[in-house]
């Protein structure tokens, strides 16, 4: 009797473990840390901001019907398929089956863009497509339309591990992003590293510090009552230490974006994440 019970328990435990690895629970950065892609990453274990979020916030992110960021994703889908500009083309006219054509983009941006001799992020890529191919006006950074399109495109990469290219032409920009990350700034004289490298997991007042990872952006923040870009978060973190922020889409922030994605290389894209 006792033996059968024991064996049953063993079998249940085994099946449980099997199912959890099958569904990707192991090493997703949300419940179990991910090993960084590269050896020289200063973090030895990667954690998505999800890990540090409150249970209600986590539940909200995981349920597509409850996740308020999904409204923007739907709006983005509509915009993606709608024609715009003098060329009378939609994004879909060129990019066809989005689940295939956009599967990797969200995990791989920012990239070096030779015509401009600098990096561009997803928002800027979308605007380039608008001006070059759709002959449409560019969308304002942080406008509802650009956030929606960006969220829709990056959502196609959900579950794909972040992997950015930082060598070759991208290298000098990567180095600038890194320098920004470690630069003390503002009246409080703190660098990103002081909060997100040296103290993650600890409470600063009522906030638990995360690793400050970029994998969930654009993110729905309860505090914002809306979706916001990574650059909006950068501006917030700059102002927190009483430092002058840079403009949305500025070169400094795009370089920082590349560096941050490198630090989070291996974490899965979670767009749209929910945070408080």
């Amino acid at each position, binding site marked *: 009797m006792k033996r059968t019970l024991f064996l049953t328990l063993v079998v249940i435990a085994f099946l449980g473990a099997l199912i959890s690895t099958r569904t990707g629970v192991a090493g997703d950065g949300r419940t179990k840390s991910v090993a960084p892609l590269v050896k020289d990453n200063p973090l030895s274990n990667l954690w998505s901001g999800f890990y540090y979020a409150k249970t209600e916030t986590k539940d909200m992110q995981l349920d597509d019907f409850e996740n308020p960021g999904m409204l923007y994703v739907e709006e983005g889908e509509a915009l993606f398929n709608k024609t715009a500009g003098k060329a009378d083309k939609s994004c879909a006219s060129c990019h066809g089956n989005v689940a295939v054509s956009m599967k990797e983009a969200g995990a791989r941006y920012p990239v070096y863009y030779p015509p401009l001799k600098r990096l561009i992020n997803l928002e800027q890529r979308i605007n380039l497509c608008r001006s070059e191919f759709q002959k449409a006006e560019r969308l304002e950074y942080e406008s509802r339309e650009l956030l929606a399109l960006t969220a829709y495109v990056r959502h196609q990469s959900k579950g794909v591990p972040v992997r950015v290219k930082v060598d070759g032409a991208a290298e000098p920009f990567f180095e600038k992003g890194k320098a920004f990350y470690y*630069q*003390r*700034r*503002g*009246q*409080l*004289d*703190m660098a990103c590293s*002081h*909060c997100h490298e*040296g*103290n993650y997991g*600890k*409470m*600063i*007042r*009522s*906030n638990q*510090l995360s690793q400050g990872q970029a994998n969930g952006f654009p993110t729905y923040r309860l505090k914002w009552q809306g979706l916001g870009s990574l650059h909006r978060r950068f501006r*917030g973190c*700059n*102002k*927190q*230490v*009483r*430092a*002058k922020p840079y403009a949305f889409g500025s070169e400094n922030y795009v370089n920082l974006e590349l560096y941050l994605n490198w630090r989070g290389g291996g974490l899965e894209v979670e767009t749209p994440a929910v945070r408080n």
Partner: protein
Amino acid sequence: MCTPFSGRGKAFAWLPAGLFSVAVLVTPLTFASLLYAADSGDKSREAESSLVSFEIIDNIHSKAIPKSLTGKKGNPKRGEVVMINRKLGNCLACHHLSRFDEKAKALPNKYGDMGEVGPPLDAVAERYDAGQLRLLLVDAKEVFPDTIMPAFYKVKGLHRVLPDYEGKPILEPQDIEDVLSFLLTLK
């Protein structure tokens, strides 16, 4: 907007709403003149400092500012107010102090949500003397070069300070003396 403390601006912004009423208890502020212009450049330019002058003594065993910044003694009661105020010292954002555990329950807006980024301040006066503590408040980086703890009385060598705070230290000299006198009760 034109309150006497608008120059000190908002609380360290990661913190939940603070205590305006407490800020009123604090003496009127003397605003230091601008230290460096708010230009778009990345490098902070040095200029005249309008801070009161003080001397850092650097012995082999310890660094310290032995003399009061104002020539006056501190008031520990007021020091406690400056310390807990989220727009001023905001020390509890990072430090725990067991002496405040009861008050944290009774007055969570003032004493609640003590952080854990810095070491607990219990019995800190047994580890440091007055001159050492004064230096830690003025500029903890003199002692711990890589620290996250802000320098509370420093305006030079900072990068891209928001215009509202340019040239102004986080605390005024008498604030420092008052906080110090409170810390000295922690034995």
